[in-house]
């Protein structure tokens, strides 16, 4: 009797604290922010009495915000594509290359994750600034007369974002490639497939889940990135996340900020769904 009771209730105690934590500090706040986005703007207070859909109509009526969302999505897309192009060969070498320094290389890929995002973005401002290392070196060598515009524009943001999120692309792809048996490739080669064909027809389809996971991760992370666009873009280029946070911190427009934040997240989620459809993704939260 006691044994069955223990089986029934005892284990629930293990999950209870996590359930309470996620319920109180994740589910309730998310419900609250949805309600908040329908509240009236306040006069001198964060929000007023009553409810309205005005925050959303304001969003869709103003091309400024739609353009900014488009701009943010564009930056996210380019960042994701570049991460894939830059990261795939590295993931390949980490998974397949028989090199002596694999542990070191793996550590190099992981190391940026151990350094805070503020510090890494700061490093890029030192490199990309008008008086930064790159421009100084180039002018010093007499290659350019005026500094190249590397910072305070979308280019600088993309460069820094690729750096910040590259490990999130490399690691899932590496794991996926490791799961592909090299003998499959040899089999294809022995049947007369060229190296490229063997890669395209055998390896690429098999490691697609890793590529999909990496792309979604990088895309979602770049959409909600705040520090990097804020430090590198300055006041000139603003992404959506920067606008949202500034709307809340500087002007205290809670309902408006909530609507903006939710619209950004929903748009991002829609993009992920479209991407998943296009690449025929099998829905399964990346196995860890």
């Amino acid at each position, binding site marked *: 009797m006691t044994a069955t009771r223990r089986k029934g209730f005892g284990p629930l105690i293990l999950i209870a604290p996590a359930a309470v934590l996620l319920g109180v500090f994740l589910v309730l706040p*998310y419900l*609250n922010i949805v309600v908040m986005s329908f509240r009236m703007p306040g006069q001198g207070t964060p929000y007023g009495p009553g409810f309205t859909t005005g925050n959303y109509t304001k969003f869709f009526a103003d091309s400024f915000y739609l353009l900014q969302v488009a701009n943010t999505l564009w930056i996210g897309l380019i960042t994701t594509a570049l991460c894939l192009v830059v990261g795939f060969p590295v993931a390949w070498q980490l998974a397949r290359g028989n090199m002596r320094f694999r542990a070191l290389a793996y550590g190099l890929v992981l190391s940026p994750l151990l350094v805070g995002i503020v510090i890494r973005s700061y*490093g890029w401002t030192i490199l990309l600034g008008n008086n930064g290392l790159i421009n100084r070196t180039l002018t010093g060598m007499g290659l350019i007369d005026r500094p190249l515009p590397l910072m305070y524009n979308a280019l600088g943001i993309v460069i820094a974002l690729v750096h910040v999120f590259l490990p999130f692309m490399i690691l899932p792809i590496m794991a996926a490639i490791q799961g592909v048996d090299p003998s499959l490739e040899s089999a294809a080669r022995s049947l007369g497939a060229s190296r490229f064909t063997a890669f395209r027809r055998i390896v690429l389809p098999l490691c697609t889940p890793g590529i999909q996971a990496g792309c979604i991760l990088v895309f979602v992370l770049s959409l909600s990135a705040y520090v990097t666009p804020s430090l590198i873009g300055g006041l000139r280029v603003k992404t959506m996340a920067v606008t949202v946070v500034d709307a809340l911190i500087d002007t205290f427009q809670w309902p408006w900020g909530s609507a903006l934040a939710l619209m950004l997240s929903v748009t991002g989620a829609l993009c992920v769904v479209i991407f998943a459809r296009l690449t025929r993704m099998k829905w399964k939260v990346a196995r860890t």
Partner: protein
Amino acid sequence: MKRPVLTLYCLLVYAFLLAPILVVVGASFNAGNFLTFPPQGLSLRWYVTFFHNDVFMRAIRTSLWVAAMATVISGTIGTMAALYYVQHAGRWKEAVRIAMLAPLLLPEVLTAIALLFFVYAVGIGTTTMIGMVAGHVLITLPFVFINVSASLESFDPSWDMAARSLGADRLTRFRRIMLPLIKPGVIGGALFAFIISFDTFTISFMLKGIGTSTLPIQLFDYLRTNFTPEAAAVSTVSIVLTLVVVIVSEKVLGLRIHRF
């Protein structure tokens, strides 16, 4: 080397990954008043300035305190949840996993804003650290969960049954069989929780109160208006702190960290 082009390409990518970090460390030894290139001589003066800067020292203490709290709480809650997930969840297994990973899957900026409104809605606001610590626990929880459940995957229930048949009670079985098995996972998860919490920005930025800025926030504020190499010195100390934590745990505890 068999494929020189691939090797060269990878070396370039590694250089790209390390460049901004090395540049920050290098800039911290610049003797000049501004971040000039080439540096105007080598000096530790910015470290001295930093160690005498109360604002930054208080931010480091806040960061360490919040990270310690978050690590202990999410280490405990996450380990318990991982035990439930692997051994008792049954048909709810997938649901538990998605719920535990949710803070990682949702955009951090939205979570941070939602939490900010919530702490005001329930009346605690940002005068206490409750909101900030709760936020840090939320975003570190998935990492503890991933690490502990990964270390439990190898657990064979027959070991537990064997101990039971030999007369070990529940507590003894937990202490002598389960605990040694999950220890690396718990410590690895806690380590990652600490580092994530120490470095995280958005959650702290939204939920900071007056005088409770963490180091990344303070650094960010400083960088918006100042261009002295002091920020580089602060960054370097922060990097070294993290490295020490990682190296010590690797050498002393022989850890393998599962980030994914």
